[in-house]
């Protein structure tokens, strides 16, 4: 099916709040983003910026104390926030799949991987034998050597990189249209990280699926993604194509974030590492004005008084900052 807008996923003005005792944490505020069909979109930001809340809200897997207070999530012509829970359940794992950060906790330790790969096809009415064949095929696609023989092995018999490959095999078995990956390489070594990224690229090319890729590793995002969304303290501060973001940075936060990446530092003689001074703002009692204002090195007078609107600075490149 061709999406009328060319976007498989459209998030509009999404806001999420968490209730904690008597306080209300405004974790996401007015988040809008698009995932174009067949593209990879990266979500970048530091801890506490709302990346995980965003994907859990899209999947409708938020904790019971969370409330979606506004917005829409359009997927395949439907608002996911309005579909009945039963329909949502049948979307998860078939149309939208998710790869988690730590494969050791997302695989069941007491069930063989073959059994788990067959179990995820529970909606299919095909024979056990054909499900088994599909499981073996999925394993060989993610680069598990001798997949038929490894079907009876348990997760602990695999190394970290192999486990993450199995977790990826599990998500692609139903050929989803949208894959959500939550920091899939943070638990892995650098040499494995490149292998997994390479694998994801291959899979995306083969299945033409769209990927929403959450990461804090800028190098990986630059390598893998077509579009990038930068989040800070629950808001989208900048978004655009990967070249816009890496070659034409606009928002002071994105600028600082990139400076801090150790890979960007040019050898300096005084041996000092860049940082962003200050702390995240309080999400219970939000500051008036720009959310990044207190830590911003280019703040203007109006930044403390009024929150900036999101402005388009170039086609497809939007920034929420008073400087533009």
């Amino acid at each position, binding site marked *: 099916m061709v999406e009328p807008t060319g976007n498989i996923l459209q998030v509009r003005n999404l806001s999420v709040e968490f209730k904690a005792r008597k306080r209300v944490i405004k974790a996401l505020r007015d988040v809008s983003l698009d995932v174009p069909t067949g593209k990879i979109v990266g979500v970048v930001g*530091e*801890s506490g910026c709302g990346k995980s809340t965003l994907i859990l809200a899209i999947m409708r897997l938020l904790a019971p104390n969370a409330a979606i207070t506004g917005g829409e999530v359009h997927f395949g012509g439907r608002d996911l926030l309005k579909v009945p829970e039963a329909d949502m359940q049948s979307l998860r794992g078939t149309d939208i799949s998710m790869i988690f950060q730590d494969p050791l906790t997302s695989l069941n330790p007491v069930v063989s991987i073959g059994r788990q790969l067959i179990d995820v096809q529970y909606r299919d009415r095909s024979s056990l034998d054909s499900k088994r064949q599909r499981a073996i095929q999925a394993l060989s696609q993610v680069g598990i050597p001798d997949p038929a023989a490894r079907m009876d092995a348990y997760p602990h018999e695999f*190394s*970290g*990189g*192999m486990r993450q490959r199995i977790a990826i095999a599990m998500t692609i078995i139903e050929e989803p249209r949208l894959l959500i990956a939550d920091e899939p390489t943070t638990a892995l*070594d*650098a*040499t*494995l*990280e*490149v*292998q997994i*990224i*390479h694998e994801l690229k291959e899979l995306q090319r083969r299945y033409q699926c769209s990927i929403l890729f959450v990461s*804090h590793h*800028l*190098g*990986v*995002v*630059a*390598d893998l993604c077509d579009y990038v969304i930068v989040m800070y303290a629950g808001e989208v501060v900048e978004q655009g194509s*990967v*070249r816009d973001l*890496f*070659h034409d940075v606009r928002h002071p936060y994105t600028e*600082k*974030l*990139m400076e*801090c*990446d*150790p*890979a*960007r*530092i040019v*050898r*300096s003689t005084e*041996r*000092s*590492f*860049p*940082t*962003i001074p200050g*702390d995240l703002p309080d999400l219970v009692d939000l500051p008036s004005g720009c959310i990044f204002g207190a830590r911003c090195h280019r703040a203007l007078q109006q930044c403390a008084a009024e929150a900036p609107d999101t402005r388009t600075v170039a086609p497809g490149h939007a920034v929420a900052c008073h400087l533009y």
Partner: protein
Amino acid sequence: MPGLLEVDGLRVRYRVLSPLRARLQQREAYLQAVCGVSFSISAGESFALVGESGSGKSTLARAIVGIETAHAGSIRFDGQELCGLSKNAYKPYRRQLSMMFQDPAGSLSPRLTVKRLVTEPFKIHAIKDVDLDVEARRLLQMVGLSEEFLGRYPHQLSGGQARRVGVARALALSPRLLIADEPTAGLDVSVQGEVLNLLLELQARHGIAILIITHNLKVVLHFADRMGIMYLGRFVEQGPASEMFQRPRHPYTRALLSSSPEPDPDAVRPPLQLKGEVSSNIERPRGCEFHPRCPVAQAHCSTVAPPATSTVQGHSFTCHFPIESDD
């Protein structure tokens, strides 16, 4: 000049099977976590240990502070042999060698306040002639935390603040060598710099030698004077950090250097150099232990272990076919 810390032929092993069962099943009874490592650190120098998980970095560090027992080799600190010392005889040296653990929140007791945490070393070493209040304030000031943190508990600290408390604890007794095990793991990039700057500043001011364990090579370039690359419990290459970045000689070092993608969408990506993962250190590969993953391995590599080659600059590597240097 003799080094402050001199490690020679150090081996640490863990028993994975009982000797009888190992014999019956014809398998190795021991896992050789550290397998003959030699290096030295001079006073005030920073040395980086780099390697993938399971390469034995943390075990090596734990052996140096005496948490693991070495089964062969020697560790000399300031000329004194530490291997084989009894627990009591070790204690005075532990004041001079301190360790900052990988997981800051996990290594701080959740039931102690920051003040108790940073002054705990004085109690452990029964140092009575100090005013703990004064010391706690001095230490917090040293790591850049205000006095209001004295009464806080670990759960009230952010990741970066918990690291700072970890640094304060490690520095409480003015050690001469600080071992920092992955000091930036799990921290956001904007905070990583803070912790590394703090370590660099303390080193410059107090002349502490630092052994940093990390897997982020870019951090090493800006932090360390020298570095050693570990693979399966051995050093495959060691030498001055800047020299190794410009002219890596071991194929593994080169692969590690190119495995971190550049934060630039138009960068030319080198082809994948390493396939697979670190081999098992129980059933070790024959010959050169890196040969199953090596992009330039030849038949010779799978049978004969390569000798170590050293250059005049103190750069040494273990490879049959090292990458040619330009000069």
